[in-house]
């Protein structure tokens, strides 16, 4: 009998191939959509991570308590050995020292007198090392408006709006006036190599982006850094792993660290990012659930129609003496086979498409030009372990439930009624 059913299933395209295709498409869409939503929502977190928070951040305990004030007097020291230690301990994380600073940008005239000046935020990161991922991480080349990327020491990028405000062009000199790590005044000359527009209101106000080596010299921070940012090599923030890493680091190195002892914080442990991560998770789950429910209804309906379409065949089988329960169970077995096949095929296709979207992404920078939103310029999917089985909810369960419901008709109808439908 199993052979008879299998032959029917294989030979009858409308019973096997078409339902499998329908289920596959539904499952593939579900998997792709879930990975896409997770990736998109995660991308918003990623922007914050790349610019300021990192997936993980190591800083001194004192710096951590007053992070908003960028207290470089509490910066990490002996950063090269600490970074090396972090690289060895956390192989799945890329570590990048950074210095955030603030001061005044002064633009001199041809006589060296102040022409214009304004308050400026600064970000020191590794710009000159060709192996450094920081340029790409910050998408600086893609954000370049005028001029070129810094190619040598003391060359900096200015935010385009800020450069207009100061009336500074690429090639012009600006003087940074601020305080060193030790509290004394510092005056340091930089040359503007280019201007960038980050497309994000928070960053486009007024910022100098400089190589960390130059900033160290300017702020007298030899082998020091305000913070060491950690980024997961997978490219996406994983709150659980980040929290585990932070707890392990702080546990090993003393949770109640003194001011200058290093501590690690996950992105969600920094400022208001925790609530944002929570909100992102719940939104992602809600949107995915709505889609899964919609897909489930479609596949449920497909299962329902598939079952009802076979009342004629059921009529013949019952007339020949097949027990109703046996007929019903055989329909469910078929639905399980179709649901399983469709779910496996759909999951493979969905994962492949999601992988493409994760690897290559969709560049929406053209649409995002001039936007003040902290939105990603490249939309990427993010494949999670849940994507490997998520599609089975609509693919298998809904198909089987749909068939089960349609099969109830076999019980509810008199055998003679099925027989009549068969004759019709």
């Amino acid at each position, binding site marked *: *009998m199993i052979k*008879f059913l299998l*032959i*029917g299933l294989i*030979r*009858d395209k409308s019973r096997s191939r078409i339902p499998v295709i329908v289920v596959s498409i539904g499952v593939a869409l579900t998997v792709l959509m879930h990975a896409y939503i997770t990736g998109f929502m995660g991308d918003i977190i990623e922007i914050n991570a790349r610019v300021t928070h990192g997936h993980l951040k190591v800083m001194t305990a004192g710096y951590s308590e007053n992070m908003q004030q960028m207290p470089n007097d509490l910066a990490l020291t002996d950063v090269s050995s600490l970074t090396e230690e972090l690289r060895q301990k956390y192989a799945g994380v890329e570590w990048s020292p950074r210095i955030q600073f603030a001061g005044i940008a002064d633009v001199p005239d041809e006589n060296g007198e102040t022409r214009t000046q304004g308050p400026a935020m600064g970000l020191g990161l590794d710009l000159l090392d060709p192996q450094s991922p920081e340029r790409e991480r910050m998408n600086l080349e893609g954000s370049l408006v005028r001029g070129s990327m810094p190619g040598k020491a003391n060359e900096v990028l200015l935010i385009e709006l800020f450069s207009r405000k100061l009336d500074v062009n690429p090639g012009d000199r600006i003087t940074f006036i601020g305080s060193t790590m030790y509290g004394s005044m510092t005056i340091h000359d930089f040359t503007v190599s280019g201007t960038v527009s980050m497309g994000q209101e928070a960053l486009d106000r007024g910022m100098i982006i400089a190589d960390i080596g130059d900033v160290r010299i300017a702020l007298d921070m030899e082998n020091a850094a305000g913070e060491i940012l950690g980024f997961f090599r997978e490219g996406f923030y994983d709150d659980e792993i980040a929290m585990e890493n932070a707890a392990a680091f702080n546990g090993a190195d003393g949770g109640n660290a003194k001011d200058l002892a290093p501590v690690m914080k996950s992105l969600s442990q920094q400022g208001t990012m925790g609530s944002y991560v929570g909100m992102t998770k719940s939104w992602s789950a809600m949107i995915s659930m709505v889609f899964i429910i919609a897909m489930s209804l479609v596949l449920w309906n497909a299962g329902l129609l598939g079952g009802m379409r076979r009342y*004629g*065949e059921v*009529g*013949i*089988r*019952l*007339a*020949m*003496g*097949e*027990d*109703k329960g046996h007929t019903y169970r055989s329909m469910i077995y078929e639905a399980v086979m179709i649901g399983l096949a469709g779910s496996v095929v759909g999951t493979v296709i969905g994962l492949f498409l999601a992988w493409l979207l994760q690897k290559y992404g969709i560049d929406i920078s053209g649409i995002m030009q001039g936007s003040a939103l902290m939105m990603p310029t490249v939309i990427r999917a993010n494949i999670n372990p849940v994507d490997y089985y998520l599609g089975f909810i609509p693919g298998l369960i809904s198909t089987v439930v749909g068939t089960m419901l349609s099969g109830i008709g076999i019980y509810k109808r*008199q*055998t*003679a009624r099925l*027989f*009549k439908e*068969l*004759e019709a």
Partner: protein
Amino acid sequence: MLQNRHLVFRQQSGSGKTTMLNIIGSLDIPSAGEVTVLNHSIGSLTQKEAANLRKKSLGFIFQSYNLFGVHNVFENIEFPLLLLDYTAAERKKMVMEALEWLGLTDKIRSKPPQLSGGECQRVAIARAMVKKPSLVLADEPTANLDAANSHNILRSMEALNREFKTTFLFATHDDKVISYLRRKIFLDDGRIVNDELTGN
């Protein structure tokens, strides 16, 4: 029901022909009175018992053949035997015999869409007869066939009736069909108005 007979219900449309066949075939139960088929009171059978009766003792032949379209001739005829749990070797032997009775051995691997109407109906007869049931119910079995095919089909059924002592019960209003049958019961509005027995 009388065994080993070739009999017919003759009736006009709407006179209760299908209902009668459904009840005799244990597909339906009588709302009043009692119907006994092969010593089984149809009204008192459970669903499982009714299915069992159909599986073991009844065969059905439909006006529109109702073969499984994606299964070949062999597989269509084999289906009732699958329900009876015969071994593969037994099934093969029985199906080959049925194919020989109906002259279908050269069509063994053909599928219903590749067969003519007459061939389809012969397959349907072979499927009904393969388990050698006590009673075969045929609802307008020649309605979709031309005269020559109708003749052949009816001759085949007549031969099977004689050889296996299987009772064939036809429901029809076709005089040509009726002329082949020995007992004729005339129904009008659900009631028997005449019951004729002719020949042997």
